[in-house]
């Protein structure tokens, strides 16, 4: 018998993975709607659009209930539904601030003052307003303990100084949620966009735009400060949700690339047969398949755990899902380009949209090296 060390106990899903008839319906209706409203042609049109998404998208999603599922008024949500929707959205790369908005809403719902919640949540759920959480700072910083943005008490109010980057759809958000650190610890503020210096980033990924923010001595009042007692837990929950959504989206990316490449491999003939008959094409596609099915198991389990009592366990599963789906998606898009051959190297082939999304996503909210270190700490302790 081999000696064994105990592993951290992670939450295990129930036998049916909590997947109900209601989930199947949500998924099916999302797929129908996306098939009608999201297309590669629309992605091409939006590439040069200054906004980057159709203004009608968010109200339409609100009508479908996507926002309600993600931002229920009582602060709880069905993470599994949201993850399923995120995957569907990833399959089509539907551009919209849906994901960033529900992450912001979850944060506000948990740590906003009654006034802030009253001000923002109803228009958010109606698809009439968007918010975004500015998690990421320069130098690869995102961990709440390591933030460099500073909040200093100034009389009755606050002075904020710092900078943020890769803020999803920050250039169009009505307001931004700013995590900062003060002498007392973590502080969250909700600030209307006009008060900040917001610059749209030029990125490789036209389907999810982002911005960098700067603020130097920005004067704010207590009204813009979220409940300090809830800030830590709420930011942790928002980070977990954001990572979960990213992971689920990336499963969708892998699915889409697999479908495109599989179809091409069945049609494209060389040497008198479809290239999919060659193991040099078939086997990498199988590897994409197996990786994405493994990612999906992690994403679903992580989504279930997010609704459960074991927050540390949920964090670990979410980190695993994020790690695995980002690795898998990057392999998937690389095979996608390579196996499409010369055509795959052109913008005519739809794979490039997915390639860019996968590449742009891999470093968000923790690189895989950081996530690996985070998981190793869970396993072994230490630093």
């Amino acid at each position, binding site marked *: 018998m081999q000696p064994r060390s105990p592993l951290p106990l992670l939450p*295990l899903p129930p036998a049916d993975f909590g997947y109900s008839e209601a989930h199947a319906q949500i998924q099916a209706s999302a797929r129908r709607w996306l098939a009608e409203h999201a297309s590669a042609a629309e992605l091409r049109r939006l590439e040069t659009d200054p906004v980057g998404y159709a203004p009608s998208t968010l109200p339409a999603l609100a009508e479908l209930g996507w926002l309600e599922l993600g931002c229920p008024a009582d602060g709880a949500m069905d993470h599994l539904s949201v993850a399923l929707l995120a995957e569907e959205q990833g399959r089509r790369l539907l551009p919209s601030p849906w994901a960033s908005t529900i992450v912001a809403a979850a944060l506000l719902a948990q740590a906003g003052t009654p006034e802030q919640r009253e001000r923002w949540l109803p228009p958010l759920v109606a698809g009439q307003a968007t918010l975004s959480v500015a998690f990421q700072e320069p130098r690869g910083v995102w961990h709440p303990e390591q933030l460099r943005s500073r909040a200093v008490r100034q009389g009755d109010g606050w002075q904020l100084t710092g900078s943020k980057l890769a803020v999803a759809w920050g250039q169009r958000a009505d307001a931004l949620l700013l995590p900062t650190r003060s002498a007392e610890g973590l502080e969250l503020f909700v600030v209307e966009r006009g008060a900040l210096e917001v610059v749209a980033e030029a990125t490789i990924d036209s389907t999810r735009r982002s911005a960098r923010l700067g603020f130097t001595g920005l004067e704010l009042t207590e009204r813009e400060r979220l409940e300090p007692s809830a800030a830590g837990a709420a930011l942790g929950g928002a980070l977990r949700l954001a990572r979960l959504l990213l992971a689920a989206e990336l499963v969708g990316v892998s699915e889409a690339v697999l479908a495109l490449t*599989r179809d091409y491999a069945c049609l494209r003939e060389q040497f008198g047969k479809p290239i999919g*008959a060659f193991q040099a094409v078939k086997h990498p596609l199988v590897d994409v398949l197996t990786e994405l099915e493994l990612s999906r198991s992690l994403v679903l389990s992580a989504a279930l755990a997010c609704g459960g009592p074991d927050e540390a366990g949920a964090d670990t599963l979410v980190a695993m899902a994020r790690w695995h789906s980002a690795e898998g998606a990057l392999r998937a898009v690389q095979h996608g380009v390579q196996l499409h051959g010369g055509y795959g190297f052109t913008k005519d082939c739809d794979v490039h949209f997915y390639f860019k999304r996968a590449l742009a996503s891999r470093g968000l909210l923790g690189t895989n*090296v950081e996530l690996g270190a985070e998981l190793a700490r869970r*396993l*072994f302790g230490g630093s």
Partner: protein
Amino acid sequence: MAESDALAEFRRTLRGWLAGNVPPPPPFKLPQTFLEVETEAQFRWLQAWQQRLYDAGYVGFDVPEEYGGRGIDPARQAIVAEELIEARAPFLVNFIALHWAGPTILLFGTEAQKRRLLRPLLRADEIWCQGFSEPGAGSDLASLQARAVQQADGSWRVTGHKVWTTVAHFARWMILLARTEEGVNKYASLSYFLCPMEAPGVSVQPLVKLNGEGGFNQVLFDDAPMPADALLGERGQGWNIAMATLMFERGAAERGGKERAAAFFAQLGALVAVAERTPLGAGTVAEDPVFRQRVAALWVEGQAIALSAMRASATALNAERPLALPLMSKLVASEWAQRLAELACEMLGPEAALSLEDPAAPFGGEWPRAFMNSFGMTIGGGTSQILRNILGERVLGLPKSK
């Protein structure tokens, strides 16, 4: 989801029973899995354990009571499997019987076959081996050459050469695939037999595995007789029945996901133990950031495989691609286990060279042994290459490679 009171009670009782009945390690080296059972002493010891477990009422929750089972009860079966791993109980030596032959007989056997064969199979009174592969027919199984000819009295005579037959030297029965028909295609000319191993004309010769262990054999049939009722299913139906057996072999069976998950966690726990107990410089391997990263990666992948084993039975979640998880489980699990054993060897540095026989070998020399044995799983029951073909063709719908 909380267990029902009855199940929780069952688990408690079982746990108590195991605490009192799991035997201490024998004075000889135990094999790592059923694939490596080599000596009579190992076999007897393991057989006794399965018999004791059966007699206590814990074997056979996938077989109706009339055939000697405990009635179909997946929940109890899963609990037994989990608790056996938890208690570090020995494996069940009649593995091929329990997981491949048994379910196949239950699916395709006559009432008489089921009544005759299943009970001694569950109790390890009669051991089963598998006779599919031949020297010339491995990946291309359907090209096998063993031939069974029906006699005037309905009985059969079989001639051929099977390899890769684990535990054949202790086996009373073999599930045997042989060619019976002429003039039809290679798939339609095969039949499936439940072949007695004690017949004249059957000889078992041990093969030695690359790591020096035995436990697997070649079996030669020289006009060996089989009774008429050795045939399972219909003549010419052999390929289809064999595919069912292979699905069981590749993990597509309804075995509990939690059981398989527990097996992955046990392997990971063993890897973590190597990292934590292997000195490196002033500390241990577990403090080295590069090894930590690699272990984390295997942890993620292992967790994903374990969760996928559980998800395989959540039908609604596999509607889009129902065959993917069953067909991929052996592929990903065997390659993962191989990487895990390789990493453990790497952690051991120069001492990974020490074998079972060296008393100073870290972890008893089990890791180089496990790494070498891991190829049994990436080759046997369909090589990884063949499984990728099958997944590409049956799940992705890509054109045939052959």
